[in-house]
Structure formats: C-alpha cells, structure tokens
C-alpha cells in the first residue's frame, strides 16, 4: 500500500488526548471562576506586600524585635543554627529514605524479577514474586500520594513534636518517590551486559547487581542529590510546626512583622541550597569520571 502523502504525519489518538487535556484545562479555569481582577490586592494587603518586598534589599543583620531578652543569640547566629538544624533533619530523613527507596525500588522493578528463559521460573518466581512486586508498587504509590506536611500533621497528632516524627514524615514520601524513580532507572538501563553475564552463568541477583545496577547508578546518584535538595526545603517547611529549622524562624519573624529578619532567613535558605547544589555538582562530576 502506497503511503498517503497528503497527510504525512497524521495526529491520530495522540492529537485527541492533547486536545482533551487542553479542554480540561480551560474547563478547570472556568469552574474555579478565575479572572484577572482576582489579582488586585486589597489596600491592607497591598501595603503589607509593599512593606515586605521593600526589605528584600535590606535584610536585617541583627534582631528587629522591640524586646530581646538577655542571653539571646544574635540574629545571624540564630539563622545559621536554624540552617544547620535544617540540614540535619534533611540528612536524617534522606538516609532513611535512601535505604527504603533502594530496597523498595528494586522490588518494584521488572528487571529484578525477570526470569531465566531456559532455567525456567522457580516456584517462588511464579507465585510469590508477582505478589511482592504488585504489593510494593501499591505501597510506594501510597507513600508518595501523601505529602510530607500531611504525614507531619499525622505524626504530630500521634506522637507529638519529636524529632523522629519530622524525620519519618519526610522519609516516607521521599522513599516512595526515590523507589519509583529508581525502579524506572533500573528498568530503562540497557540490558545487554546483564544478558552476557547470564550467558556466563551468573545468577539473577548477580546479573542485576553487576550488569544492570552499574549502568543505572550515575543517574540514581544524581537523582538522590536532587531529592536531598528537595529535602532541605521540606525540612525548612516543617519549622512551621515548631521544629527548630529555618521555617520556624521565618514564621516567627513574619508574624512579628519583622520583614528584614524574614529576608535574612530566606537568603540563608537560598545560600544553603546554592552551596549544596554547587557541592553536589562537583561530586557528581567526579563520580562520572
């Protein structure tokens, strides 16, 4: 059959899906009654915004509070201490999330369970493995679908303002996300090397560990660094619940209308993320060599 040259690249079903998404977006905007006039702030709101943004270029260097009790550390010391606490919470949460994410991610990858064509699948491979695979995928979906702030609300209600509650609240959704992405990275890694190891008698576990994982590892490391950066932000936000991270300093300065202090804390958070980004970029470049 000769190709139809009048319609060289027919849109087909993909075109309908795209059009459908566009219609859904417009419908959502209409449903919410979005209109440009919503962006006009009230007079009080406008002056607050003006006061707040006016301080963007003059962050506070010392406390702006009217009364500072004796023995209170200076603003910068306070901000740096909160920054360190932010990093500590993020690091603790990420170390839990990484271990869980690797274990769950491997269990949720098809490559981990793929069988041997001639050796035949074992009894375990035919019956138990699909159950573990499916259960893991449901579990990581559930872990991911609840935001860390919601997990925090739940754990605070259950156990109170303990450090572990914050760490677990961040670690659960992060482990779920890491597991999902890790499983995809391992499944998308080229399989020739692991097939060659199979032909040389390697077991399924060995093929996975030495043929497949090394190919996915650089991507996995890069993604883990990116998630660490996200964990820094999450850890800062949990300060709004009272944890001694940058979020608590920001919230307290904000409700006291000490906007200069807010900007100081925001810049410390920005610096934290930038420094981390620069450091992880250098580390990744060294690992890639």
């Amino acid at each position: 059959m000769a190709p139809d040259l009048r319609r060289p690249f027919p849109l087909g079903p993909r075109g309908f899906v795209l059009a459908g998404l566009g219609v859904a977006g417009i419908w959502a905007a209409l449903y919410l009654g979005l209109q440009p006039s919503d962006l006009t702030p009230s007079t009080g709101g406008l002056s607050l915004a003006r006061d707040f943004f006016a301080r963007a270029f003059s962050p506070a260097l010392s406390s702006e509070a009217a009364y500072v009790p004796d023995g209170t550390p200076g603003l910068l010391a306070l901000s740096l201490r909160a920054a360190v606490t932010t990093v500590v919470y993020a690091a603790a949460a990420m170390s839990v999330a990484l271990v869980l994410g690797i274990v769950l991610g491997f269990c949720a990858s098809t490559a981990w369970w793929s069988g041997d064509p001639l050796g035949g699948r074992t009894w375990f491979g035919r019956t138990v493995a699909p159950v573990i695979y499916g259960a893991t995928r449901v579990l990581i979906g559930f872990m991911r679908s609840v935001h860390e702030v919601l997990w925090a609300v739940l754990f605070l209600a259950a156990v109170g303002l303990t450090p572990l509650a914050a760490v677990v609240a961040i670690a659960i959704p992060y482990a779920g996300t890491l597991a999902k992405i890790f499983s995809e990275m391992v499944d998308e890694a080229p399989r020739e090397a692991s097939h060659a190891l199979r032909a040389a008698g390697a077991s399924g576990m060995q093929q996975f560990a030495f043929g497949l994982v090394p190919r996915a590892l650089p991507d996995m490391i890069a993604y883990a660094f990116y998630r660490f950066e996200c964990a820094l932000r999450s850890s800062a936000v949990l300060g709004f619940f009272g944890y001694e991270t940058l979020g608590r300093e920001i919230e307290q300065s904000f409700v006291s209308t000490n906007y200069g202090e807010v900007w100081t804390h925001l810049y410390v958070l920005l610096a934290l993320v930038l420094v981390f980004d620069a450091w992880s970029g250098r580390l990744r470049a060294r690992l890639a060599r």
Partner: protein
Amino acid sequence: MKQPATGFSLDDVSVRFGAHAALRGIDLEVAPGEAVALVGPSGAGKSTLLRVLVGMVRPGAGRARVGGEDLATLTRSALRRARASIGFVHQDLCLVPNVRVARNVLSGRLGSQGLVRSTLGMVFPPRAALDEALAILTRVGIPEKLFERTDTLSGGQQQRVAVARALYQGPAALLADEPVSSVDPARARDTVGLLTRISREEGLTLLMSLHNLELAREFFPRLVGMRAGRIVFDRPSEAITEADFHALYDLDPAEVLADGA
C-alpha cells in the same frame, strides 16, 4: 579453573520466534577441541544457534547437548555450571561501559561464585584475581588498560576486553558471535587470529560465526554454511567450492526483504 574441552551436539534442533523460523532441523556435531566457523548471510540463524548452545534460547524441538548433557534436562544450578564453562564473545560486546576494565574482566567468573563471594570479589578484588586478569589482558594485548574506564577504550580494545572476560571464566569452550562485525578489516583479521590462536594453545573448542568467508577459510579447518535456518554445507575449508559460496550468498529478492535478522 582449567577444564577439559567440551564438545557440542545439536540433534534436529528447531527454533521459532513467532512466525519466523530461525532454525529448522539443525544437526551439528562439534568435537572437543575442534575449531569451527559458522558462515552465512544475516538472518541465517547463526546467532540463534550459538545462543541455543549456552541455554539462552530454548529449542522448540530437538536436543542441544553440551559435553554430552542435554541442556533442557539440567537443573538451574547445573545450567549455571554449564554456562560458566563456556566463554561467549557477543556481537555487541555487552560490556558495562561505565566501570573499569578490571571489573568487566572479573565479572566473567560470577557464574562459578555465590552471591556473597562474588560481591566481595567485585567490590574488593583480591590481588590474585587482579594478577590473573592482568595476565589475560597481557595475552590479548592491552595490559595497560586494566584500570581504565571501559568506555574510554577504542572499539577494537573493547573487543579485547570482551575476549578477556570470556577467557577469565576459565572456559572449556569459546563461542563467538560475529566478534568482528563492528571493526575494520585489519582489526577483524587480528581478532579472529587471536581467538583461534588462544583456543589452539589452550585446547579449547571454538565455534565462531562470521560474515566474512575469506577470514573463515584462512583461520578455520572446518566451515559450516548456514542459510535461512538450515545447514547448507559442512566440510573442510580446503574443500569449499565456488558453488558453496553461491549457495550461501546468491539471495533471491524475496529473501532479502524477508530477512528477519
């Protein structure tokens, strides 16, 4: 690790991939220590035949025996042992590109090690293993590359790494699937020469598939010609005639388009 050479035998072996018949009733005996070249056009079934011999493809009919043992009857661990006894040099090399050469070579012996021991050996290779890997790399001519990252090597050098990995297995036989399809003619000649020399010195059985009939005649005493899943001829290389060559490569147009390689 040194084992006595293994022979192969295929008894009326057929393999289908969907509607495509890759092998149709293949009978082939390869004696221990023999060197045989499989020649023929793409899609003739040479790769499939080699993959049947390491248990990577299960024949739909017939028996594949390695060292007298029917692969279909082996337990998983016996199959692993059978595979570990055969070094396989793949067409597209199948190395892990982003690790050092040493790790690719050392991975050849995974088949005869348990998970714990192999993990320790891969992460912290013992000195003796590195000495051995270096000795094998010296044999294939690239000792200085032991700790280079594999993907920094040239195509010809990577091919030697693939050969080294197969030799590090301490195999009783070598299978090579078009090992020279991706390098220039001079290097192709080199590599075929290297593989035939090493298997002769070690007394290994060697079965290699090749497009290049001239190379096959130069280095192998016995040639097996394949086309469309069947063996067309099987004779000593000095007895190969012009007619045999035409029987392999004079394709009719329908066959060219139906090529399922």
